[in-house]
């Protein structure tokens, strides 16, 4: 196993853990945390491919990750604001009980 494959495996496991948390936890905050973990797994992939790629002098992977971190920060701020607004309305963050739009 080459070092790049090790990085990719770690990143894939990180992504799977985030996905499992995002779809199985009842609490809305932890679903958001799972999404953050998945974004971070993608960032690790960018850095790994940049470092082991043929032309690391171009710094393109680093740039993408910097922008991705900025977008993830914006997403976390808006997501947590939505969760707080939902809590104020329903008095719960349990995703099973927020079902008034369920068909």
């Amino acid at each position, binding site marked *: 196993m080459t070092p790049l494959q090790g990085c990719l495996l770690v990143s*894939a496991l*990180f992504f799977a853990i985030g996905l499992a948390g995002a779809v199985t936890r009842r*609490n809305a*905050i932890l679903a958001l*945390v799972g999404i*953050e973990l998945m974004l971070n797994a993608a960032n690790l992939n960018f*850095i790994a491919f940049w470092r082991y790629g043929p032309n690391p002098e171009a710094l393109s992977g680093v740039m993408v990750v910097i922008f991705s971190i900025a977008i993830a*920060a914006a997403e976390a701020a808006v997501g947590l604001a939505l969760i*707080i607004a939902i809590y104020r309305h329903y008095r719960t963050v349990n995703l*099973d009980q927020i079902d008034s739009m369920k068909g």
Partner: protein
Amino acid sequence: MSLPFIIIAVVTLFAAAAAMSLRNLVHCALSLIVALAGLAALYLALDAQFVGFTQILVYVGAVAILIVFAVLLTRSDATPNQTILAPGWFTGIMISAIVFATLGWAALNSTGLPKEMPSAPEATVKNIGDLLMTQYVLPLEVIGLLLTAALIGAVIIAMKEEPPHVGSYEAEKGGAP
């Protein structure tokens, strides 16, 4: 695969699994901080110093604090006495296992992946700043606009709604209170 990389990766993955599986949400937030800091250490091990320190500043410094605030504001810091998993949890875990198997299979069986680590590139803050001001200046402006819009939107969404005042219509018209 060097030994430090394996140790950091194992610690990071355990912390991520703990962040997704513990009952108490405050413990989950603390495990998340360990996982994000471990990821920053992985970036440093991959010679991406600026990204590693940005990860610590943004995630460990800001996003983790934001999540702790949300946990405390929604009063979900007490350990729940009911089950923490949604009804379809088994399907969800199976789907993530399938996703991991697919990604891992693709990573292990790809033939075109580079085998050796090239010599360490010069990723200094000066180079990154030069690129941000020349080649990536348009994305930088767009990100600035996006962050401003997102922060204003977050404040407006989370703002407390005032209950409608009785008689505010008359007060606006200058009539009786």
